[in-house]
């Protein structure tokens, strides 16, 4: 889904190179076709593979975990029964004439219930049945959170089989995801560099006024390096977009939304807001739509982060090289001056 958008830009960027090599139009067309096919196979293929892997994983986890009978749910139901029996006992003991005694006893029963319940919740119970927990969108989010190494933890496997499946899924999924990450980063970096070069040249042409610059364009193209501030701006813009989107979609505050975006994109994945509000009060279709938006946002965001990594590394390398050269020149200068001074003194002597 994602790489399709980049196809046109990369294709057009590769066209001049192909033209430079071959002048025969037939050869050129062939070259273009080959490149397109290769691109489809690598980028789109890897993207499709990742999405497909996530979907397959979602179905597998629904199959494995959906059938598990819910011991915690049963325990909670038994607790509730106990509590209502307690209330009934209090009623039969004190009737309705001793309001104070009745209140104290019922309060105790509720307190007991609450303590036990808190223990069960701390062990991972979240008040939902397995069918409710393992809806398709939740399972999709779960498999995504496994292989992106986010691990939100709002939905976790409870059966031993599910845990083993998680481990195996992660073992195969993480390398696949890393491949996607690298690929996506490279493609996006190329596109972004091309865009940046184009904009840069346009602005330069406006300043200088064409003519002489036209001859220098080709060598300039390879030399332009995207500064890391531009990457940072892209990242900030992406996070801001996500913040606004999620704030309007999920009715979070802006701070919560930013927190979610940053922790997700950094792969920290603190669960926090993922399950709470949205599951309760929204209908199925809307909810799954939101989750799919999140899915796309996360996958694209990881690609953009990879891109920024790529570009920034290049920028930093160039800067370090320049710095080294400067320092070398500086030392050379100092040495020359020292030699000159020494010679002058010698000549005075």
């Amino acid at each position, binding site marked *: 889904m994602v790489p399709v958008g980049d196809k046109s830009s990369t294709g057009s960027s590769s066209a001049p190179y192909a033209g430079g090599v071959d002048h025969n139009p037939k050869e050129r067309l062939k070259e273009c076709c080959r490149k397109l096919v290769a691109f489809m196979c690598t980028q789109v293929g890897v993207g499709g593979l990742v999405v497909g892997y996530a979907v397959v994983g979602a179905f597998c986890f629904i199959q494995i975990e959906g059938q598990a009978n819910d011991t915690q749910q049963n325990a909670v139901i038994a607790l509730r029964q106990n509590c209502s029996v307690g209330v009934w006992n209090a009623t039969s003991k004190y009737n309705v004439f001793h309001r104070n005694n*009745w209140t104290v006893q019922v309060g105790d029963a509720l307190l007991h219930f609450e303590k036990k319940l*808190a223990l069960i919740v701390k062990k991972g119970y979240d*008040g939902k049945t397995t069918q409710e927990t393992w809806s398709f969108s939740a399972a999709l989010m779960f498999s995504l959170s496994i292989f992106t*190494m986010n*691990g939100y933890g709002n939905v976790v496997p409870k059966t031993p089989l599910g845990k083993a499946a998680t481990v195996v899924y*992660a073992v195969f999924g993480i390398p696949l995801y890393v491949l996607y990450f690298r690929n996506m980063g490279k493609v996006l970096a190329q596109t972004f560099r091309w865009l940046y070069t184009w904009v840069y040249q346009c602005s330069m042409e406006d300043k200088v006024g064409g003519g002489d610059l036209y001859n220098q364009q080709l060598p300039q193209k390879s030399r332009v390096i995207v500064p890391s501030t531009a990457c940072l701006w892209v990242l900030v813009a992406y996070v801001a977009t996500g913040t606004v989107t999620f704030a309007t979609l999920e009715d979070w505050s802006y701070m919560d939304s930013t927190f979610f975006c940053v*922790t997700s994109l950094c792969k*920290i994945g*603190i669960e926090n807001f993922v399950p709470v509000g949205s599951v309760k009060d929204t209908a199925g279709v809307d909810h799954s739509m939101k989750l799919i938006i999140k899915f796309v946002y996360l996958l694209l965001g990881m690609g953009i982060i990879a891109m920024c990594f790529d570009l920034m590394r290049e920028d930093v390398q160039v800067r370090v090289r320049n710095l080294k050269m400067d320092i070398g020149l500086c030392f050379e200068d100092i040495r020359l001056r020292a030699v000159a001074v020494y010679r002058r003194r010698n000549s005075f002597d």
Partner: protein
Amino acid sequence: MERKRSGRRYYNKRKKTWTQQCKDYLRQFIAFLFSNIGIICLVVGYTIAGAFMFIFIESAPGNSQGIIDLVTANRTGTVARLWDLTCCSTYYEDDWRTEVQMHLRSFQSHVIEAVRNFSYEGASKEMERWTFSGSFLYSLSVITTIGYGNVTPRTLLGKLATILYAIVGMPLFLLYLSNIGDILAKSFKWIYAKCCLCRSCKKRRKRMLALQRKEQWKMDMRDLKLNTGVLTEGEESDDEGTTDGSSSLSFNDTQEVTVPISLCLTIMVGYISGGAVLFSKWEDWEFFDGSYFCFISLSTIGFGDFVPGSKITGTANGSGSIQVSFILCSMYLMLGMALIAMCFNLMQQDVVMKIRTCTDILRRITRCKN
């Protein structure tokens, strides 16, 4: 005459190199201290500072009292509603039961929300999620990007602090990983070359001999070239070249060895199962759960359904063993991440080597055909 001079010079040079070597070693040692020990200290110090910061921000007094009050108010409200139900509205037991169930269910969902989202620990318990150890684990999980999510910041300031903390901390931890992973990889390779390759000493010696012969040939060639050029300087540089060559040769030989992938995998599996045994002892988990936890943590997924501090954060009675287990746990995590980085480093080298030999073979085959 010529020979004598050269011998004396050689002696002088050797002495000089010996002291130089000492100096070099010292310099290297100091650099090692500053770069690696320094970075470990930096990471640990950063985590400790983060722990104190989060304690300071998150455990503001009104923060925890509010949620306790809320739950208590809800409880008394439920009791009042039940009283209304019992005394006034319903007179049949079945109706009464269903109504009570309904009220209890709403109470239950409220408690669940309080426990899950506001880290309420049940009535009459001290709500101390932000103890030092819990907070330390939180900041560690942020900078390692594990993100267990069992302890989350609730205040606005806490969230902002987490974001900033992560932005600064993650590059630091990445630096730590690459540095320590590199060192571990080098030392592991050295050990592997010393221990495991001794059995095939004959092969190795043969290869060494071949290498040396090649080197010698190169030297001769250079010698020839240099002799035609400037005489004395050429001799000197040649002398240096041989000593350098021999020392770098032995070093290179240990570093050129690639550790097979299976060994790396074995190490990882062994580390995970070792961790599983340790955690099953400390935290009373089953072995399977322990290994599941280790895998999820070391792959930085970090669901947070099992958390090393369930004892730590749950009952902070401040006994010594808990502190020890907590320290060991964080050490396990930090060492494990470095070990994983090392294994990936080694595996990558192995794979690259294999691919290179494959392409070499392919190229040779195609050339033969042509």
